[in-house]
């Protein structure tokens, strides 16, 4: 089978294309581009927008890529069918990125240089600047409406319903109605220009569908912030860092709306912008220690700084919730590009023998649900729990199942003794393992006048929290923490299977934002008669179901977005799996992984090993 075929598989011409906008950062293009994507969503068509932005506030090139997929594929797809090029800096590279037969929409106010002309693509020149200058007098408006003009032009070329755009503009400018009319004017300038000068629609276009249903379009960071509000967090301590900043902002936004004391209007929450990530984590630990639910959000560099505190919380057994919105590392790396490269760091954060539960959301709905779940897990396990999201999930809008909340749900605060319980018992021992699950009983400060107080510390102690350097006591404690880890395996979310029983000797394993593209790759391969079983990991520690899946396949492709195959290493290390049967499928260029990329790597591997799917040679294992 040839992957060339897979990549150039015939595409339906309706509701199936990728459009990319090449803009200059800080020119107001974001809201125009979002208008385009949201209009498609409102027409009931699955759409996935992605912001590809620089670490810059103004002036550098920025791109917005929109994939439209009738089949509902939500991963990124390579190959640009239509490019709106309004950035002179990146024009040459942008034009080169258009697939043969594709379209370039550009500002024809100035003539294109001859070296920008390709014979194999279509050029649609629209004098955007000229139209904006003729119709608007304010310089800022001229710049902003240039963007709306191209949205208008695209609406005719691709058949976006005008009423949908109009409604979106009315919603956007509710309260600022004066702005609606000039926006509509700008839209129409683009629409009319296309009608007067080009054939339309293009050979791919949009048609209303009912495929979106009750889904919502939202970014993962917003969902995390909301999940923390629903999960009962009262303290958010954070330090600004891309791409996690909007988690704290979303928490504050929702809390300021839904978390006010009904009697006084005062806040039932506190947001503290800390002096650094260390302090942010310290505050989270202090608040959790004292019985409040608290979280922080950061990215890789912040997790590096928090290591010491994470180890303290592990050893002193204090709950903590950390949201790691991963970006391309190491060091400052590519701060505005995505990666799944903090897996090793997060799983074993801190010196000494430590392990931390990780959750891997794949959608905004899961960001919401899993963030709330992190608080229950952290309280139940009395340990830090880390939500492993990333820039792609966190900062891009995704079509997602709606958020849901079970009204009867109670927060699970884990094993906490109150005054009556302390009175009713004999000597209290903070680190006694009464139930054999490795989880001891906590008391909050201030619970009882004479019983239940202890010193929490990162130093060794006995079962009664008394400082000790006794080897046996130290080792008992370390072993109990390992028992607790075994308990964690039973209560973290289990993996998702894509088949009821094994259909193949080969499996694929993925997690987080590699999910959509992996699912699509699975279908691409199936079209090519390569049958793979699939599993999606939702948490670390890995459950027995994951172990069984890997053991029952001769070969498992592990798909992840980092250079070193970090999840693969974790699987080898934690489940003593034979490394030879675990093959990495990697993407680490900072761009979200694509289905074609995954399918190509898998099929190349199989071809190289001369293995046909139904007859895997034993030597391969």
């Amino acid at each position, binding site marked *: 089978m040839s992957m060339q075929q897979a990549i150039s598989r015939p595409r339906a011409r309706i509701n199936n294309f990728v459009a990319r906008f090449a803009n200059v950062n800080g020119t107001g293009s974001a809201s125009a581009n979002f208008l385009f994507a949201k209009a498609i969503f409102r027409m009931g068509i699955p759409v996935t927008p992605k912001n590809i932005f620089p670490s810059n506030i103004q002036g550098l090139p920025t791109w917005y890529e929109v994939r439209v997929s009738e089949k509902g594929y939500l991963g990124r797809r390579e190959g640009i069918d239509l490019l709106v090029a309004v950035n002179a800096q990146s024009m040459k590279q942008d034009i080169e990125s258009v697939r043969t037969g594709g379209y370039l929409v550009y500002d024809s106010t100035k003539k294109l240089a001859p070296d920008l002309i390709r014979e194999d693509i279509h050029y649609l020149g629209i004098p955007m600047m000229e139209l904006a200058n003729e119709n608007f007098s304010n310089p800022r408006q001229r710049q902003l409406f240039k963007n709306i003009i191209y949205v208008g032009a695209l609406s005719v070329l691709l058949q976006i319903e005008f009423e949908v755009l109009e409604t979106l503009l009315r919603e956007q400018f509710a309260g600022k109605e004066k702005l609606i009319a000039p926006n509509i004017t700008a839209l129409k300038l683009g629409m009319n220009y296309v009608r007067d000068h080009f054939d339309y629609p293009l050979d791919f276009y949009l048609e209303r569908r009912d495929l979106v249903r009750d889904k919502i379009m939202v970014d993962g960071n917003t969902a995390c912030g909301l999940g923390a509000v629903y999960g009962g967090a009262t303290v958010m301590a954070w330090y600004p860092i891309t791409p996690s900043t909007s988690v704290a902002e979303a928490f504050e936004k929702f809390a300021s709306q839904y978390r006010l004391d009904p009697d006084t209007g005062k806040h039932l929450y506190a947001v503290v912008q800390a002096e650094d990530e260390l302090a942010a984590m310290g505050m989270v630990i*202090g608040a959790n220690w004292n019985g409040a639910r608290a979280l922080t959000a950061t990215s890789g560099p912040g997790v590096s700084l928090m290591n010491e505190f994470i180890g303290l919380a592990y050893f002193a057994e204090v709950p903590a919730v950390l949201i790691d919105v991963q970006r391309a590392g190491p060091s400052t790396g590519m701060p505005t590009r995505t990666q799944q490269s903090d897996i090793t760091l997060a799983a074993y954060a801190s010196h000494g023998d430590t392990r931390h539960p990780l959750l891997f959301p794949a959608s905004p709905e899961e960001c919401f649900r899993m963030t709330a779940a992190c608080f229950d897990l952290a309280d139940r396990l009395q340990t830090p729990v880390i939500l492993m999201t990333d820039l792609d999930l966190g900062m891009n809008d995704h079509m997602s199942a709606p958020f849901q*909340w079970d009204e009867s749900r109670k927060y699970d605060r884990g094993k906490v003794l109150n005054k009556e319980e302390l009175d009713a018992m004999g000597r209290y021992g903070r680190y006694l393992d009464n139930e054999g699950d490795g989880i001891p009983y906590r008391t909050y400060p201030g619970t009882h006048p004479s019983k239940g107080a202890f010193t929490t510390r990162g130093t060794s102690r006995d079962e009664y929290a008394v400082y000790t350097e006794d080897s046996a006591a130290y080792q008992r404690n370390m072993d109990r923490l390992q028992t607790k880890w075994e308990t964690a395996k039973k209560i973290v979310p289990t993996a998702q299977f894509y088949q009821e029983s094994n259909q193949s000797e080969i499996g694929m394993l993925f997690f987080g934002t590699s999910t959509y593209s992996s699912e699509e790759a699975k279908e691409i391969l199936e079209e090519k008669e390569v049958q793979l079983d699939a599993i999606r990991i939702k948490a670390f520690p890995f459950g027995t179901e994951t172990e069984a899946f890997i053991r029952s396949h001769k070969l498992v492709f592990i798909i992840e977005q980092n250079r070193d195959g970090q999840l693969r290493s974790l699987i080898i290390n934690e489940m003593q799996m034979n490394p030879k049967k675990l093959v990495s499928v990697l993407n680490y260029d900072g761009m979200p992984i694509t289905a074609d990329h995954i399918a190509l790597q898998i099929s190349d591997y199989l071809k190289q090993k001369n293995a046909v799917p139904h007859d895997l040679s034993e030597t391969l294992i």
Partner: protein
Amino acid sequence: MTYLKPLFRHPKLPKNKIGYTLKEYEGTISTLCAGCGHDSISATIVQACFELSIEPHLVAKISGIGCSSKTPAYFLGNSHGFNSVHGRMPSVATGANLANKDMVYFGVSGDGDTASIGMGQFVHVIRRNLNMVYIVMNNGCYGLTKGQDSATADVGSASKSGHINPFQPVDLASLAVELGATFVAQSFSGDKQQLVPLIKAAIQHKGLAFINVMSPCVTFNNNPGSTKSYDYVREHMHATGTLDFVPEREAINASYAAGTDTAVTLHDGTTMRLHKLAPEWDPEDRLSAVNALQQARAKNEILTGLLYINTVFGDLHDILNTTDRAFNTLAEKALCPGEEQLQTINAGFR
């Protein structure tokens, strides 16, 4: 090794207003060196809490790492303690305080813990005016690692081995005033008479109360030539005044010369009477406090007593406009907006 104190106490020990004796405020036996200044400070904390009739379990003791940070085990045994990580006590205290505003927070730190590794957190907890007592047990050296100079060691001060410190010291009290701390005091571990009322005032102050206590290290920094030795501190102490509380039945016997009296009303309504020694200095005027500190420094004097107080500036909870209820008492009903609101939120994303 576990140190347990004998449980026997004299049956006629005096009781405070809530019926507790000093015993209820004590901790386990100290494992610090005999004669360590830190143990004296622990004893004054016990005394101050006893005299103020504070419920011991409504106090939280939070520390970093170092000799000083071990002391929370040695006072208030019925209080929860948190011996956290080096230099990070302020952030842990911040989180704890946010979770429950109804307790008294003692932050215990040392000169290494605060003036070096924890300098950032020291600065920022002051900026936030966290309602806590922040005590630095300042001995100018790293005791637990056997006596290296700390950042508060004075330039020219000699260590036990005769090494002369060539670096400028960090003056924590001056820095605290400069940063806008709302309560700054300085004292000496050997002066219990001054320290007890200072700690009491610090507990009652709503906001960050910083007390820099010279607390000599008997083992590594009590030699001739050291500016943090018992002898040196005693000889160079210069008290700014004495403190007393109204209405407190028994007045503290001042051993200093008479001056003028100032009354400062604290947030909880109690009045603190400050018996000043220097008439030109006003503890509610930051400029005069800065001035007094700088002048003392020029004269190689260690200015002790309450140096500055501001009872107007709100604490972190005031700044963040948080509810009067402790966060850790709030449950689903108050915290979770519910499914109906969620449907409205969903609608906004369609």
